[in-house]
């Protein structure tokens, strides 16, 4: 990071240029170019199949695991094109974490879930038990889960409620000190209360992490995001402050979508 004096939101954390992506013959992303501001919550909205999840997954190269995917264009994160040949997926994913639609804690203890990332990157013996304990407490406190689970840290994470599981999935990213957190409809498996809890949590992370969230729920996009990107049929249609996208959209398609005429 360069030590500039500008406010966090004046800098870009992700710069996408002319990104195209094909699943075999089907083009899922068409010449997407966008700059995503550091420290803000950016919402990705659009009807099903518009490419928003694909776009999100291309920000940490998760698409590649499913063969037959071709990507062109550049995605700069912290100034580095992540599609360059010298980028290691392990290092990239340390910096760009992802939270999934369905909470997917690993079938090990809560404690092990949190330290898993560190173990994977540093080797088990690089950190002392004490350091690990501290990191676990810190991470769980950050997501407001510490008080609920501090006595059952060695129980299986899959026994937690869905809301707690999703919080854990966010907490386990934090010890890796990511710059970007990608969220793929993180609340769609949760009830209203769980949704509110996760949204409060996102609010607390705002400013310290760049968050990109895909959501089907337009009210949620309005509540949680600072900026919004509207996508349609693989193209980026509109990008701007959330208020503008919802109240003064510049494109007809955006207006009709946010009014609920289709999608």
């Amino acid at each position, binding site marked *: 990071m360069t030590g500039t004096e500008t406010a966090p939101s004046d800098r870009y954390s992700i710069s996408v240029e002319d990104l195209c992506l094909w699943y075999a013959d089907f083009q899922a992303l068409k010449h997407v170019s966008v700059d995503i501001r550091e420290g803000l919550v950016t919402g990705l909205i659009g009807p099903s199949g518009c490419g928003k999840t694909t776009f999100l997954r291309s920000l940490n190269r*998760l698409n590649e695991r499913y*063969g037959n995917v071709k990507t062109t264009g550049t995605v700069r994160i912290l100034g580095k094109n992540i599609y360059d040949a010298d980028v290691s997926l392990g290092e990239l994913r340390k910096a760009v974490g*992802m939270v999934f639609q369905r909470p*997917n804690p690993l079938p090990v203890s809560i404690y092990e879930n949190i330290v*898993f990332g560190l*173990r994977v990157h540093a080797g088990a013996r690089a950190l002392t038990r004490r350091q690990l304990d501290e990191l676990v407490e810190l991470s769980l406190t950050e997501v407001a889960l510490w008080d609920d689970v501090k006595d059952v840290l060695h129980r299986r994470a*899959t026994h937690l409620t869905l809301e707690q599981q999703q919080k854990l999935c966010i907490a386990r990213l934090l010890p890796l000190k990511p710059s970007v957190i990608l969220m793929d409809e993180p609340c769609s498996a949760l009830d209203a209360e769980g949704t509110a809890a996760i949204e409060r949590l996102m609010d607390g992370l705002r400013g310290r992490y760049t968050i990109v969230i895909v959501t089907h729920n337009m009210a949620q996009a309005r509540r949680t995001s600072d900026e919004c990107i509207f996508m349609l049929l693989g193209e980026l249609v509109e990008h701007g402050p959330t208020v503008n996208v919802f109240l003064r959209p510049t494109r007809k398609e955006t207006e009709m979508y946010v009014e609920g005429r289709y999608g």
Partner: protein
Amino acid sequence: MARDAATTTGPGAGDAIGRFAAGPVERRKALVERLVAWLLGSLTVLLVLPLIAILATLVAKAWPVLSWAFITQNPQTYMTAGGIWAPLIGTFYLVFISLAVAAPIGVLAGVYLNEYAGENWTTRLVTLAVVNLAGVPSIVHALFGVGAFVLFAGIGRSVLAASLTLAVMTLPVIITSTKEALAAVPQSFREACWNMGASRWQTIRTIVLPNATSGILTGVILQVSRAAGETAPILFTGAVFYVAVPDRGLASFFPYGLFDRCMALSYHLFTISTQVTGVSEALQYGTAVVLIGLVISVNLASISLRVYLRSRKRW
């Protein structure tokens, strides 16, 4: 009848009598339903009957010889008396060595096929080969064992050659069951690991394999009973008519060297039933009871292990 109640429930209630009663089609359906349930039930019972009949016959006819001494003593007086210690320990040798070879290779090959190999022409060819290998008759495996291990590798007819032949025979099922056990681990666990920057191997070692253990172990253990029961593969590769081995003390547990030939239960049963005259029926049946008892107890162990491991995991 509820006629009184019906009349008090208001206008039109009288029409409700007989409403929802079964018509001719419904009655026919109900009849067919009963017939089908009865038929399927009796077929299931029919399936179990032979097993019970076989076990009962075996145990009844073997009853006179069944004792602890039968298991711990060697065959005596040209195999017309005594016990089955030498073949029993031989079977243990063959099973243990063959699995020690086949299990690691099979499990690792299964891991490769399910976790690393892409969906391409080569993978399909390998999978096809594995499936076909599983269908090869055991006598063909025996001939392969003679050609490859006894003659070509120069091991000669021995415990090692017989075990390797059994290993080749059990490999395909171990590979297939490993693949299936791994495929049953939810993809979301792998995604979660990859997303924290874990490599494929880290993911497999820390998450995928521990959650597939019950399936893999079941597959491996079931091959114990197969390796213990087969006669053909060891017939030409290492089993022998009779060996005098110690049946007392520590030495009785290590009677065979890797390059010695050995006796085995299945082959012993074959010889005392068809090759040796004057063997009492009880002795033959006793050998069969021990062999089948061994197989059944290994299978039971496999099932209980599976149940235990299943009860510990949850997702």
